[in-house]
C-alpha cells in the first residue's frame, strides 16, 4: 500500500472540514473491507485517509418518531444483533448475515456497503423494499433523499465529493412491514451475489394493498421492479399465478449482464425464481403475523 496521511476526526463537523479541505485527494475509511483492498491494488492512492471510526454522529441504531435510524458506521454484526432491527425490519438481518463472513461483518458497515455501491451490494435491496431514506451531510448542511436516488450507477452514488453519508432511515410507516430477502451466490460461505432480491408487502383483509420488489446485481444499480409490483398489488394473498406473472415481469425490468460469474440468461432465471420466492416469503410473513 502507498502511504497517505491518516486523520481521525472526533466529530462529523471535523470530518467534513478535513475532507473538504483535502478534496479530491481524500478517501473516507469506514469498515475498510473494500477500501483497503482497493488501496492495496492501486498505484495512485489518496493523499489523505479520513477514518470515520470515531465520529459519534455516524453510530447507533434508534427509534424516532420518523422511523428507525441506523448510523452509517453501524456494522453488519451490529445490525444482526440489534433488537430494534429484529423487531422492526428483520429482513435487514436476513440480508446482513449473507455478507462476507463473520470477520467482514464485524468490520464492514452498512454505510460503507451503500457508498461502495457495487451493483451486487447486499444491503441495498431490503432498504429499497422498505422505502429507506438516507441523510448526507456536506459543508452546506444536511439533505435527505430516497435510497433509490442515492444509487446512481455502478460504484457511483449521489454523494458529492465533500459529502458524508450520515444515516439511513426506515420510515415509521414501513416498520414491521413483512419483508424478505434472497441471495443467489456461487457458494454458501462468503458468497458474492449473482442476483439479490427483496420484497415487502402490506396486506389488508386478505388483499395485497402495497408491494415493493427490489433487485440487486441485475442492473447497473439496485432497482425496483415497478411493473411487477403493479401486478401483485390488489391481488388476493393466495394468488400464486399473480406471483408467477410478477416474477416473469421482473425479468423484463432488469438488465442483467454476462460476466465470468454467470450469463445474463442464467441471471434472468434467478430473477424470476428470486422474485417469486421473496414475494411468497413476505406474504407468508404477512399472513403468519
Amino acid at each position, binding site marked *: *500500500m*502507498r*502511504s*497517505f*496521511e*491518516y486523520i*481521525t476526526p472526533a466529530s462529523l463537523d471535523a470530518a467534513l472540514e478535513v475532507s473538504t479541505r483535502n478534496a479530491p485527494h481524500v478517501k473516507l*475509511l469506514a469498515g*475498510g*473491507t473494500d477500501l*483497503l*483492498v482497493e*488501496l*492495496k491494488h492501486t498505484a495512485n492512492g489518496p493523499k489523505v*485517509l479520513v*477514518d470515520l*471510526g470515531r465520529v459519534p454522529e455516524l453510530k447507533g441504531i434508534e427509534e424516532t418518531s420518523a422511523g428507525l435510524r441506523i448510523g452509517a458506521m453501524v456494522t453488519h*454484526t451490529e445490525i444482526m444483533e440489534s433488537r430494534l432491527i429484529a423487531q422492526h425490519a428483520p429482513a435487514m438481518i436476513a440480508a446482513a448475515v449473507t455478507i*462476507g*463472513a*463473520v*470477520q*467482514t461483518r*464485524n*468490520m464492514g458497515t452498512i454505510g460503507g456497503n451503500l457508498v461502495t455501491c457495487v451493483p451486487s451490494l447486499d444491503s441495498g435491496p431490503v432498504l429499497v423494499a422498505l422505502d429507506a431514506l438516507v441523510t448526507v451531510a456536506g459543508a452546506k448542511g444536511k439533505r435527505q433523499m430516497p435510497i433509490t436516488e442515492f444509487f446512481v450507477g455502478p460504484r457511483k452514488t449521489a454523494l458529492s465529493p465533500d459529502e458524508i453519508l450520515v444515516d439511513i432511515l426506515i420510515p415509521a410507516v414501513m416498520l414491521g412491514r413483512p419483508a424478505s430477502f434472497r441471495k443467489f451466490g456461487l457458494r*454458501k*460461505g*462468503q458468497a458474492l451475489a449473482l442476483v439479490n432480491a427483496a420484497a415487502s408487502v402490506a396486506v389488508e383483509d386478505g388483499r395485497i394493498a402495497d408491494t415493493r420488489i427490489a433487485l440487486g446485481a441485475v442492473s447497473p444499480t439496485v432497482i425496483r421492479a415497478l411493473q411487477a409490483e403493479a401486478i401483485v398489488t390488489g391481488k388476493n394473498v393466495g394468488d400464486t399465478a399473480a406471483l408467477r406473472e410478477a416474477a416473469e415481469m421482473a425479468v423484463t425490468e432488469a438488465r442483467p449482464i454476462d460476466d465470468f460469474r454467470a450469463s445474463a440468461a442464467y441471471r434472468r432465471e434467478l430473477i424470476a425464481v428470486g422474485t417469486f420466492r421473496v414475494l411468497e416469503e413476505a406474504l407468508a410473513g404477512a399472513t403468519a403475523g
Partner: protein
Amino acid sequence: MHHIEVTINGVLRRAEVPPETTLLSALRDSWGLTGSKLGCDVGDCGACTVLVDGLSVNACLLLAVQADGREVVTIEGLSGFEYLHPLQAAFERLSSYQCGFCAPGMIISAKALLDENPAPTELEIREALAGNLCRCTGYTKVVDAITEVCRDHANAVGVEESA
C-alpha cells in the same frame, strides 16, 4: 510515523508505524508475533484473524493505527507454557489441522464463537468458520473438535450447577 499503543494478549505494546501499515504487518514485523498468517492480503482466507476488542477481524484489512488504544488477542495469547486453551487441546487430540497454516486464524474464530455462544449448533460452528479457508482438512475434524469442547463445557457447567 504514528505512535501507537495496543494491548496485545494482555501486554501493552508500543510501536512507531507508517499509517499504511496493516495490523497484520505490525503484529508480525514490529512485535514478532508471527502466529497470524498472511494468506491472501484481502480478507478472503482468514489466516490473519485476530480479536480486536473481542470481535474477530481480518488483521490484513485493519490499519495498525486503527488498533491504537484497543485490545488485541492473537493466537499467541491463547496458550502459555503451562496451559492450553480447551480448543487448542481438542484440536490437538483430534489432529484437526494438517499443514497448520489456517490454524491460528481458525482457532481465533472458534474462540470468538464460543465466547459469545458456548453451545452452538453445528450450523453455527460452520457459519463461524466460513471466513477461514482451509485446503487440507475439509473442516471435518475442526468442527468435530469444537463440538467436543462445547460438550465438555456443557458437562462441566452441568457438574457445577448440580454441585
